[in-house]
């Protein structure tokens, strides 16, 4: 069904070419919105939608963009999409929009977007570009969700806001780890994921 290039574009970013843990892009929002699971998922979906459609649009008009103003064109497209996502969130999920605050607006500065536009959409046909955007968005979202899972579980004792660590533990003297809520532990968690990932994929290890 999918050609080889499309398949690679869609599935590659999930693991072997993951934007966060292999290319180390998009780290800033990965630290900022992963204290709780719910905002992380919303963020993942938003970024996936924006990467997919910005890739598609840029790929459609790639032959008409003058090379020396391409960054400006890309920015206009991405900014328009970011504003649409922001407005949709404000309209249908205002609480989440408040919780994510500036980070939805800051998707425009997410390195993954520009990276995919420059590296893929400008030189490929629309359909593979669209799949590439979806793949990279999901690759980013997976890492966000994994990081947010551990941070919310250990930092707040909850998942999706529901307490999962039994009250009996707290009565026995267990406390939530406040450091997990702070950004440094997000960095350590991402580091652990990279550690695990590279130990499974030995060819990714730097010499």
């Amino acid at each position: 069904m999918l050609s080889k290039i499309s398949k690679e574009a869609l599935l590659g970013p999930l693991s072997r070419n993951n934007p966060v843990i292999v290319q180390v892009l998009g780290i800033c929002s990965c630290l900022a919105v992963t204290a709780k699971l719910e905002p992380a998922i919303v963020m993942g979906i938003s970024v996936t939608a924006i990467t997919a459609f910005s890739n598609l649009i840029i790929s459609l008009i790639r032959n008409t963009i003058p090379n020396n103003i391409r960054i400006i064109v890309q920015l206009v497209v991405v900014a328009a999409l970011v504003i649409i996502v922001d407005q949709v969130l404000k309209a249908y999920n205002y609480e989440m929009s408040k919780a994510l605050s500036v980070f939805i607006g800051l998707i425009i500065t997410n390195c993954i977007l520009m990276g995919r536009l420059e590296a893929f959409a400008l030189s490929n046909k629309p359909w593979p570009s669209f799949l590439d955007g979806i793949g990279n968005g999901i690759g980013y979202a997976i890492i966000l969700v994994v990081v947010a899972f551990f941070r919310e579980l250990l930092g707040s004792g909850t998942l999706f806001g529901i307490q999962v660590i039994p009250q009996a533990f707290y009565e026995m003297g267990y406390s939530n780890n406040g450091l997990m809520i702070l950004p440094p532990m997000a960095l350590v968690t991402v580091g652990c994921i990279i550690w695990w990932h590279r130990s499974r994929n030995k060819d990714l290890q730097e010499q």
Partner: protein
Amino acid sequence: MKGLRNYLNKVKPNFMPGGRYSKLQSVFEGFESFLFSPNTTSSTGVSIHDSNDTKRTMTVVIMSLVPCLLFGIYNIGYQHYLAIGNPDAGFWNLFVYGFLALLPSIVVSYVVGLGIEFIGAQIRHHEIQEGFLVTGILIPLICPINTPVWMIAVATAFSVIFAKEIFGGTGMNIFNVALITRAFLFFAYPAKMSGDAAFVATEPVFGLGEGSVVDAFSGATPLGQIATSASENPVLTNIIGEPISTLDAFLGLIPGSVGETSTLCILIGAAILLFTGTASWKIMLSVFVGGLFMGFIAHLFPSATYPASSLTPIEHICYGGFAFAAVFMATDPVTGARTEIGKYIYGFLIGVLAILIRVYNSGYPEGAMLAVLFMNAFAPLIDYFVVQANIRRRLKRAKMND
């Protein structure tokens, strides 16, 4: 001793490559060199011959920590019996109570830390290093006595893995491992690491020291009292509300983390370190100079907004963990500056920062931990600039002679 040596020689082949327990080779070698000094010498040319090795250095540091440890144990008992209104319970009651209260922390810290080091060494086929011997005793000494042991276990595991093993093990770490443990505890479990309930053991231990706490009891440390007071001249009290003097703080009968209360015992430890040449006197001296300097500056402008500015420079040195950090933390040769001029800059800035944080950041009543960790990060940079300056100076001289 001869029998032990013979026994080791007998079982040694089992642990060598090809032997039955060859996976445990580094464990065996670790124990062997712990029990006997290794008799292998370098076969190729070396420049320096000295019997001083990591084991001996670590042993000296442990010895210099003994006064702090013993006094800390006594002080745990003293504070406890003072809190239950029975300070004349007798020296041995106090001491045994303190010993039993502290023992679980020491055991847990060593078991977790050494366990991870041993496992890491087996996996990577490294030799087991002695580095954790000192860290393991430092961790209980810099924590409040009421820290739950499982927290010490979690924090020790975190810091040994992420502050040490990841960077390549003993001698390769950027940050002081014991202080990372303390910082982890401080930020992860702030409720257990500061405030009134952390620093004085009020519960009986193994049935020893039964009694209820007296009404006037308040477990805040002197620096904690200062940080929460709103007056320009806060009156410092001990845990039952009697005023304390700087001499009390110097001798150490005040609440605080286990090993840091007695400046006198820390100075005895410092004397041992300096006499044996184990620690750098340059770092130690310049930390104290930096602390006195910043304390002096802060004391010039006392204000009610920053109550700690009412302390004189000498009081700054005696209260809290400043002296302990200066003697045992800043002088860590692995994480500190290594150039001779760099040591002065590094130490001075630690002293200045510690007092700066203490006085002007009300969120942190004690700044020594953060100051040392911060300067750990800058030590390589200091060294870099010192070396570059030296290169420039010599280049200039070389050009002049042309």
